[in-house]
C-alpha cells in the first residue's frame, strides 16, 4: 500500500457513522487536528451524503474531500443499515434448506422466555417462515459418517423450486455439517449452478459451532443480509476509490472493533448491531480521561434512534449471546456484541395523537427524507427537531454550522397541527413533545441499568449524537445523576469512537484434547497454523504503518462432561513440556473458581478450541476535539423554558474559556449539535474544553 499524502505531507484517518438520518464523519491527521462533518444521509446514493460530510469536515481543515481522501491511509465505515434492515424486516426473501426431519429449528429456538407467567402475546414467528423452509433428504451423523446420502435429484428439484417462489437468498444449515461439510458444500454447488447470482450462506463456513439453532440462525440472518449489504458495501468502496481513496478500508463490527471491509462483505451478519458499538469506545475514553470514572453510561442520540450502552470497571459491557429483539423470543445472531439498548427516539421522531387522544412520539422517524418539517424537504409531520425549533433552541440560520437552513414557519405549522388536536398552545405542545421523547430515553437507560441492578447514580454519564444536547439535562436529572458530560465531539460520538477502536483479527481451530492425554504435537501445530494465518494480515497492516501487538493465544476449555467452555489466555506461545500443561490446568482451575466459585481439582480439563488474536492499534487522536473558533461575543435569542419565553445568551462552541461556569438558561451551539442548559442547571467548561452539565 502506498502512503498517500496531501501537498503538505499530512496523513489522515477518516471514520464515519452512517445513521438513518445523519452521516457523521471525523477526520484526524497525524499532527493532532480533529474535524467533524455532518450531513444528511442520502438513502438513494449513500456516497453523496458521505462525501458531503467528508467535505464539511475537510473544510474545517481548509481542505477539500479529495485531498483528505487522497491523503487518507485508514478509513473506518460504520452503518446501522444491517440492524435496521433486520428490525424492519427489509431483508431479502430468504429460504432455509435443512436436514429432512428437522424443519422447526428456527421456530423452536432454544426454548425459554423472560416472561413465564405471560400469555398475552402469541409466539414469535421464526426468522425464516416455515413456508420457505425445505427439508433435504440427507443426514450426517455425530462422528461425520453419512447416515443418509444426499439425494441430489430431490435437492436439485427443491433448489429449482426456490426460483419460482421469488427467493433472493438461501441459508443452508444441515445437521453435523461442522464435522462433515460434504453435503452443505454440494448443496452450495447446486445453488450456484441452478440459481446463479443468488447469494447463499453455508452454516459451517460462517460460524462452525455445535448447536443447530444458533448456527442456523446465524446463517439465516447472514444470507438475508447479503443482497442488501453486499450492494451497499460495494457502492461505498467503489465511491471512495473513485474519489481518490487508496488506503485501508475497514468496517465496524458488533464488538466495538473494526475489521477489513472485505470480511464484512463476505459475512454481513457481523454488521448487525455494529451501529451502537462504537459510541461506548469513545465514552470509555472520556469517562477515564475527563471524569476519572471507570463506570460510564454512554448515550447516543441521533436522528432516528437512541442507543445506550455501559462501561463497567473500564470495560465496555458485552454479551456472548446477541439477540435481535427480546432474549428467547427474538433471533440469536450466534455472535458476541456490545450490550446496547436501542429505542426509536431521536431528533427525527414523529409526534402523533393516538386513538385515545394522547400525544405520542416515535418510534416512527422522518429519517433524512423527507426529514423534519423544518428541513423543508416536503416533510409535514411534527418531529422532535421541529419542537426544538419552536422552542427557540435551534437557530434556523445556523443549523449544522450554517450549512443547512431550517424553515421555522414549517416547524410552527407542523407543531401547530398537533397543538390543534390537543387543544393546547404551540410552545406547550413543543415542550410536551420533548418531555415525552426524554421519557423514552430515560426508560431505555433504566432498562440497561436499574433492570440489571445497576444504580445509574453510581456511574458517570456521557452523551453524544447530534440531538443529545436538547434534552440530556432533563434526562440526567430524572435519573438522579448529578452531571452529564457532552464532549466537544458529541455531535459525532460514534464516528469519534471509531477513531479509538482497535483492528482486531481473530482466527481459530478446533482440536479436542484433554489434560490426561495431552496432544502436545497437535496443539503446537495448531498454534503454529494460527500464527501463520495471522502473519499475512499482520504484514498488510504493518505495511500500512500500523503498530502491531504480539499475537495473543487463547483456549476454550472445560471440565470433562461439561458442555460450555471458559475462555482463557495462554501463558506462552507453545507447550514445550509438562510444566506448560500444568500451568494451563492451574490457570483453568483458577478461572473456574473466580467465575463459578468452585473447582474440581482431580478432574480432567478438556481443551476444545484454540484462538489467535492479532491487535493492530491505529494512531488514535487526542480527546481535545476540533480546533475552537476565535472567541466571539455571545448572541441573544428568545427561548422557551417552563412557562414562557426568555431571552438567553447563545455561545458559540469553543468560544468559552476553559474552566468557566455559567448558570442556565443558556444555549451553546457547536457546528454539529446544540446544547440546551435549562434554568437550575450549570454549564462547566472543563479544562479540555468539553461541557459538563451539572443538574443537581
Amino acid at each position, binding site marked *: 500500500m502506498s502512503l498517500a499524502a496531501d501537498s503538505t505531507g499530512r496523513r489522515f484517518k477518516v471514520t464515519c457513522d452512517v445513521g438513518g438520518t445523519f452521516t457523521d464523519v471525523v477526520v484526524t491527521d497525524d499532527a493532532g487536528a480533529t474535524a467533524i462533518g455532518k450531513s444528511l444521509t442520502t438513502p438513494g446514493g449513500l456516497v453523496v451524503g458521505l462525501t458531503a460530510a467528508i467535505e464539511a469536515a475537510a473544510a474545517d481543515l481548509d481542505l477539500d474531500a479529495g485531498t483528505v481522501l487522497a491523503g487518507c491511509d485508514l478509513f473506518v465505515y460504520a452503518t446501522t443499515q444491517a440492524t435496521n434492515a433486520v428490525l424492519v424486516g427489509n431483508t431479502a426473501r430468504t429460504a432455509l434448506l435443512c436436514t429432512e426431519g428437522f424443519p422447526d429449528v428456527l421456530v423452536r429456538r432454544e426454548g425459554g422466555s423472560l416472561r413465564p*407467567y405471560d400469555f398475552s402475546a402469541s409466539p414469535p414467528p421464526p426468522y425464516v417462515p416455515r413456508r420457505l423452509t425445505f427439508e433435504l433428504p440427507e443426514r450426517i451423523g455425530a462422528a461425520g459418517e453419512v447416515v443418509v446420502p444426499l439425494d441430489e435429484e430431490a435437492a436439485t428439484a427443491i433448489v429449482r423450486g426456490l426460483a419460482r417462489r421469488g427467493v433472493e437468498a438461501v441459508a443452508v444449515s444441515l445437521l453435523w455439517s461442522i464435522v462433515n461439510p460434504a453435503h452443505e458444500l454440494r448443496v452450495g454447488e447446486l445453488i450456484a449452478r441452478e440459481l446463479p447470482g443468488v447469494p447463499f450462506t453455508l452454516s459451517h463456513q460462517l460460524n462452525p459451532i455445535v*448447536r443447530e439453532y444458533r448456527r442456523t440462525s446465524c446463517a439465516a440472518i447472514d444470507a438475508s443480509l447479503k443482497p442488501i449489504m453486499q450492494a451497499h458495501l460495494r457502492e461505498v468502496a467503489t465511491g471512495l476509490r473513485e474519489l481518490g481513496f487508496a488506503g485501508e478500508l475497514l468496517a465496524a463490527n458488533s464488538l466495538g472493533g473494526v475489521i477489513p471491509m472485505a470480511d464484512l462483505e463476505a459475512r454481513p451478519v457481523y454488521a448487525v448491531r455494529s451501529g451502537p458499538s462504537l459510541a461506548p469506545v469513545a465514552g470509555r475514553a472520556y469517562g477515564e480521561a475527563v471524569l476519572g470514572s471507570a463506570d460510564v453510561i454512554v448515550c447516543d442520540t441521533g436522528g432516528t434512534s437512541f442507543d445506550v450502552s455501559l462501561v463497567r470497571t473500564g470495560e465496555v459491557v458485552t454479551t456472548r449471546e446477541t439477540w435481535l429483539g427480546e432474549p428467547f423470543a427474538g433471533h440469536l445472531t450466534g455472535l458476541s456484541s456490545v450490550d446496547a439498548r436501542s429505542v426509536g427516539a431521536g431528533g427525527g421522531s414523529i409526534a402523533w395523537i393516538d386513538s385515545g387522544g394522547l400525544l405520542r412520539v416515535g418510534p416512527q422517524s422522518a429519517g433524512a427524507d423527507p426529514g423534519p418539517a423544518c428541513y423543508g424537504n416536503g416533510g409535514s409531520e411534527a418531529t422532535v427537531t421541529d419542537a426544538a425549533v419552536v422552542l427557540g433552541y435551534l437557530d434556523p440560520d445556523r443549523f449544522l454550522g450554517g450549512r443547512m437552513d431550517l424553515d421555522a414557519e414549517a416547524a410552527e405549522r407542523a407543531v401547530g397541527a398537533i397543538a390543534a388536536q390537543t387543544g393546547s398552545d404551540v410552545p406547550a405542545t413543543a415542550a410536551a413533545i420533548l418531555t415525552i421523547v426524554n421519557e423514552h430515553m430515560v426508560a431505555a437507560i433504566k432498562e440497561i441499568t436499574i433492570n440489571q441492578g445497576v444504580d445509574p447514580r453510581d456511574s458517570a454519564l456521557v452523551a453524544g449524537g447530534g440531538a443529545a444536547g436538547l434534552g440530556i439535562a432533563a434526562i440526567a436529572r430524572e435519573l*438522579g445523576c448529578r452531571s452529564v458530560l457532552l464532549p466537544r465531539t458529541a455531535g459525532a460520538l460514534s464516528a469519534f469512537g471509531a477513531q479509538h477502536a482497535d483492528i482486531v483479527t481473530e482466527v481459530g481451530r478446533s482440536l479436542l484434547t484433554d489434560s490426561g492425554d495431552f496432544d502436545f504435537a497437535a496443539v503446537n501445530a495448531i498454534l503454529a497454523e494460527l500464527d501463520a494465518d495471522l502473519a499475512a494480515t499482520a504484514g498488510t497492516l504493518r505495511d500500512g504503518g500500523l503498530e502491531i501487538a504480539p499475537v495473543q493465544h487463547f483456549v476454550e476449555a472445560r*471440565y470433562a462432561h461439561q458442555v460450555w467452555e471458559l475462555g482463557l489466555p495462554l501463558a506462552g506461545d507453545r507447550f514445550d513440556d509438562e510444566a506448560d500443561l500444568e500451568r494451563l490446568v492451574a490457570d483453568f482451575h483458577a478461572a473456574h473458581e473466580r467465575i463459578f466459585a468452585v473447582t474440581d481439582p482431580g478432574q480432567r480439563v478438556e481443551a476444545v478450541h484454540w484462538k489467535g488474536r492479532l491487535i493492530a492499534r491505529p494512531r488514535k487522536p487526542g480527546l481535545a476535539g476540533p480546533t475552537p473558533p476565535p472567541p466571539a461575543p455571545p448572541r441573544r435569542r428568545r427561548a422557551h423554558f417552563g412557562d414562557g419565553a426568555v431571552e438567553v445568551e447563545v455561545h458559540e462552541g469553543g468560544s468559552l474559556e476553559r474552566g468557566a461556569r455559567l448558570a442556565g438558561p443558556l444555549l451553546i451551539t457547536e457546528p454539529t449539535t446544540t446544547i440546551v442548559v435549562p434554568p437550575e442547571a450549570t454549564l462547566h467548561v472543563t479544562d479540555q474544553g468539553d461541557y459538563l452539565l451539572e443538574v443537581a
Partner: protein
Amino acid sequence: MAGAPELDGTLLAVLANRFEAIVREMTNTLFRTGRSAVLNMARDFSCSIVSADDQLLAAAEGLQVHVLGAGLQTASMRELHPDLARGDAFLHNDPYLGNTHTADFTLLVPVFHAGEHVFTACAKAHQADCGNAAPSTYMPYAADLYEEGGLNFPCVQIQRDYRDIDDIVRMCRRRIRVADMWYGDYLAMVGAGRIGERRIGETIERYGAATIKAFVERWLDYSEQRAQAALRELPTCELRGSSPHDPMPGHPDGIPVQVGLSIDGEEGRVVVDLTDNVDCLDNGLNLSRCSAMAGSVIGIFNCLDPDLPHNAGSFRRIEVRIRQGSAIGGLEFPHSASVATTNLSNRLINSVQAAVAAVGDGHGLAEGAGAMGVGYSVFSGNDRRNGSPYVNQMVIGNNGGPASATADGWVTYAMPDCAKTVYIDSVEVLEQRYPLRIRSLRLLPDSGGAGRHRGGPAGEMVYGPVADPLQAFYFADFAHNPPQGVRGGAPGGAARAAKIEADGSAVPRPAIGDVELVPGEWVLGVESGGGGYGDPLERDPELVLDDLLEGWISAAAARDVYGVEWVGTVEDDSLEVVGEATKTRRERLREGLEKK
C-alpha cells in the same frame, strides 16, 4: 455506616433487580458448569434467594414449580439446624419437609452478615439420576418411598466451613449411577450457592445491612399490594375446576383433581381449596405440599398481570387449603411423590387457570399440554466409546401452550409446571454426548386446539440407539384426556407413543411406559397440543390463512373447523380470503347445517 440512607423508589427498584440479577448469575453458574444434559442444556434447575424468615424474595426465571415453595425448605433448615454457621451447606430432597420430589436435589447455603443469618441462597436441580430402584428419576408406579428406592436427604449437612462432608458425598457416589457426573452437578450447585453468597455479601457491603433489611420488608409489601390490586380487578365469585389425569393401574377412570376457587374481588384475595380430593395414592403421583402450593399459585399468577413480582409478598393474597392425607398436597409418609412436579401438578395448574376462564371473555386460560412423553424420556444404557454407563433425561419434546383471550399458545411451552422456562436440548449436543440418534423432530399440523386463539402445536419425535441397546422411560399423561379448550375452544391433540420395529412397522405402546431398543429399532412419541380459547368461527380469517400457509393447520381444518373460504394456492403464497363465502360458511357451520 451512619444510619440507613433513604430507601426511595429508585433504590427499591435497583435492589429488587439487583437480587434478581444475583439469581441470574447463580443460574448462569449452574448452567455453564453442570455436567448432565438435563442441567447444562435443558436448564431443569432453579435458583432463588429466600429471606432469613423464609420468605421467597427473588427467583428470576426459575422453574415455577421449583421456586415457589423454596421457603418451606429453608424453614426446615432452620428448625433442624438451629446452630447454622457461615460456610455451611445443606442437601435437601425430602418431599415431606418441603421439597418437590426426590429427584430434585436442593442445596441450601445460609448467608451470614456480621454473624447474623440474613438470607439463604438456594439451588434446586433435577438430577440425571437419584439412585432410584430403576434408572429413572420418575417412578409413577412406585407404591411408596421404599419402592422408589432413591436416596432421601431430609435436610442433611453436606458442607461445613466451605468444605464437603465426605461421608455424605461418599453415600451419593456409591449409590447414584454415573457418580462422576453426579459430583460435577453437585459442584455446579455449590458454585451457584457460593456465587449467590458472595454477591449478596457485596450488596450488603455496598448498601448497608439496615437498608437491605428495610428493602426486603418494603419490597414484599409492595409485591403484596400489586397482587391485591390485580385480584381486585376480578369479580367476587366462587368457581370450580377439574382436570382428570389419564387412567393408571387401579384407577381405570383416571385420577380427578378438584379445585374450588373463592375470589374476593373487594379484598383482593383468593382461596384455592384443594381439600375435596382423593386420599394419598399407592403410586408415585401424589403431590408434595410444595408442589400443590406451587401449582395453585402458578394457576392464579397465570391469570393475573404478568408484570407482578412473583414472591412471598404476592403469595400473601393467595390462600391454599390442603387436607392432610390427600393426594393433592397432603402427602403422608411413606407415600410416594416421585412424579410430583409433573403429572398431577400439571392437572392442578390447568384446573385453576381454566376455572378462571368462567369469569368471562378476557379471563383465564385454556389448558396447557403437559405430556411427559418420549421427548422428555429418561434414557440409559452403556456407551461403548468410553465403556461407561449413562443415564439422563432429555428435554426436547414439544407440548403446546394454552391459548388465551388475546394470544395463540406458545410453541416451546414445555408444560404447565415449568411453562416457558426450561430450555430445549440441542439435537447435536445430545447425539455428541450419548450413543443415540434422533431421526426426526417436527411440529404437527392440526395439533393445537382450534379456537378464536389457537393452542400451541404438539411435537413428534423419533429416536433410537446407534450401537448398543437403550432403555427409555416416559410418563405421558394427556393421551386419554387431552388439554381442554375454554369458552368454545377445542381440545389440543392427544399424546401417544409407538415402537418402530426393525422392519419399519409402528406398534402403538402405552403412553406411560418404557421400551428397550436395539439398533434399528426406534421409539416414536407425540406430545400434546394446547387447548383453544373461544369459538374457532370467530378467528380472524387472515390468521386462519396464515396458519394454513405456515402449516399449522390443514386445508380441511381451515374450511371445516374455522369456516374460511379462500382462493389461491399455498405453493405460490397467493391465498386470499373470500369474505362473503366465509361469512355464509361460518353461519351454516354455526347452525349445524354443515359438519364441523
